[in-house]
């Protein structure tokens, strides 16, 4: 009744493009689907369990928080919690144990989002906040990367073994895990070894791009993630500014230092195809809530993400740094939004009226 009255007296426009939050979120999920399915194929049933448990934990936490705040639980239908959980699952080790998954989903939604006041209010990307918090708290679990064990291959674990690994009833078999390219490169750099040598012997660029490599679901097949991102661009769910700025700044910085030293620095192409840069550029940094709203702001934000990420990767303490970079730039978003307002019609960039009053008064 009340809702009816409110709608009954509302100002124009009396037309709408039929978009909805739910539709946007589901479009993003859809764009992630190919890479996700490919990830399931590569890492088998444990990856599926990891994925499902994180998403369910996120949705359940969302419902709980809404209920605690006395809001309608049907708001879960906006699919924003599903997307947060999904993105988080894409950035976690594919064979994460159950408690890590549930904790991650809970942390992302409760601490990352609802503490700030719910959807639209959070300062930091909830998925990245959860990932980084867990990375610092549980560094071993969060860097346990298994080699690929495609479904149907001999080494792929069966259902019971998968459940056992997921529930930590049995350990991950010896020799199943290893270091990702970026991890190995960091170790090599720290140990004074040659990155060029390492890359030449153990890793392949093509494989990294297509996804025949270890890592989280979101960093194995950069190709499929890129395809999903381009589809989002085409559907205008995201704009090109942030992804392009982030990829270009990464490429430029990495290229510059690669030219300085092939031994010490990794090739820019490896930077682009490893560590979930595509996922970060198209799906994480473009999060509406935590990125700037103006086009110029988006360009700066994207370029900043790329630069911070490269700095941490090259000289910082962590091998991959999409999460840190995005969180860092998230913190700057309010400032960027405040300073870089779009130029209003009839005004200059400072907000003063433009001065092209030219029509002379006829006396």
């Amino acid at each position, binding site marked *: 009744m009340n809702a009816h009255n*409110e709608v009954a*007296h*509302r*100002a124009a426009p009396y037309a709408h493009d039929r978009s909805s939050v739910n539709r946007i979120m589901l479009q993003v999920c859809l764009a992630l689907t190919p890479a996700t399915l490919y990830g399931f194929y590569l890492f088998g049933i444990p990856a599926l369990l990891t994925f499902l448990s994180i998403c369910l934990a996120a949705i359940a936490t969302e419902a709980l928080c809404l209920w605690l705040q006395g809001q309608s639980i049907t708001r879960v239908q906006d699919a924003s919690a599903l997307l947060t959980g999904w993105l988080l699952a894409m950035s976690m080790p594919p064979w994460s144990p159950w408690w890590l998954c549930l904790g991650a989903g809970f942390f992302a939604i409760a601490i990352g989002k609802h503490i700030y006041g719910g959807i639209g209010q959070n300062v930091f990307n909830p998925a990245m906040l959860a990932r980084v918090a867990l990375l610092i708290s549980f560094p071993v679990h969060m860097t346990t990367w298994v080699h690929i064990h495609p479904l149907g291959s001999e080494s792929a674990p069966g259902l019971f073994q998968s459940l056992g690994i997921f529930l930590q009833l049995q350990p991950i078999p010896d020799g199943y895990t290893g270091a990702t390219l970026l991890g190995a490169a960091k170790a090599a750099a720290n140990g004074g070894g040659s990155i060029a040598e390492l890359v030449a012997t153990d890793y392949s660029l093509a494989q990294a791009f297509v996804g025949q490599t270890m890592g989280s679901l979101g960093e194995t097949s950069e190709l499929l993630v890129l395809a999903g991102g381009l589809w989002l661009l085409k559907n205008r769910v995201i704009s090109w500014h942030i992804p392009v700025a982030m990829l270009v700044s990464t490429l430029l910085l990495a290229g510059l230092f690669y030219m300085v030293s092939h031994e010490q620095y990794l090739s820019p192409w490896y930077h682009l195809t490893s560590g979930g840069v595509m996922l970060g550029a198209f799906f994480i940094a473009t999060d509406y809530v935590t990125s700037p709203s103006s086009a110029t702001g988006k360009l700066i934000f994207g370029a900043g993400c790329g630069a911070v990420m490269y700095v941490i990767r090259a000289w910082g303490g962590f091998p991959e740094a999409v999460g840190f970079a995005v969180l860092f730039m998230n913190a700057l978003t309010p400032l960027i939004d405040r300073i870089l307002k779009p130029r209003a019609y009839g005004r200059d960039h400072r907000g003063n009226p433009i001065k092209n009053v030219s029509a002379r008064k006829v006396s």
Partner: protein
Amino acid sequence: MFVATLVLTALGLLLGWLLGLAAKVFAVEENPIVNEVEALLPGSQCGQCGFPGCSAAAEAMVEGTAAVNCCPPGGRALTETLAELLNVDLNSLGDAPVPQLATIDDTLCTGCTKCYKACPTDAIVGATRQIHAVISKACTGCSKCKDVCPEDCISLNPEPVTLNNWHWTKPEAA
């Protein structure tokens, strides 16, 4: 030990005396902010705030015993200026009283001129034995006219909503 005690005591006494002196020398006759607030108030001494006049209201506002939105003629604009001056959170205030306008029932008015003599803003026009009328843009709604009217023909009502001042209400959106 004894010397130390003595020195400290002397020091304390000296500083205390200095403070006392300073208080006398730099004494402010009246809280200057009270004057500032009073200057902002309409000054019609209408008494709608419940205080005898604008200066009393200003004092009470500075002391915090009167709300900064207690002045109906000042309206929302005054409330905001005062809130900023006195550092009051606007959201902590309750609903402000609605500004009123006086209207004279011309079937009852005898033209006694009492009301227009009482009006602090000269908002009532008319002459002896002629029906009086209220100029609404000058009326502060102070009800002084109503109080003196022997025929009880003046009523105070909130300003009516017309096509000129109507606007959309704030949506109850999430």
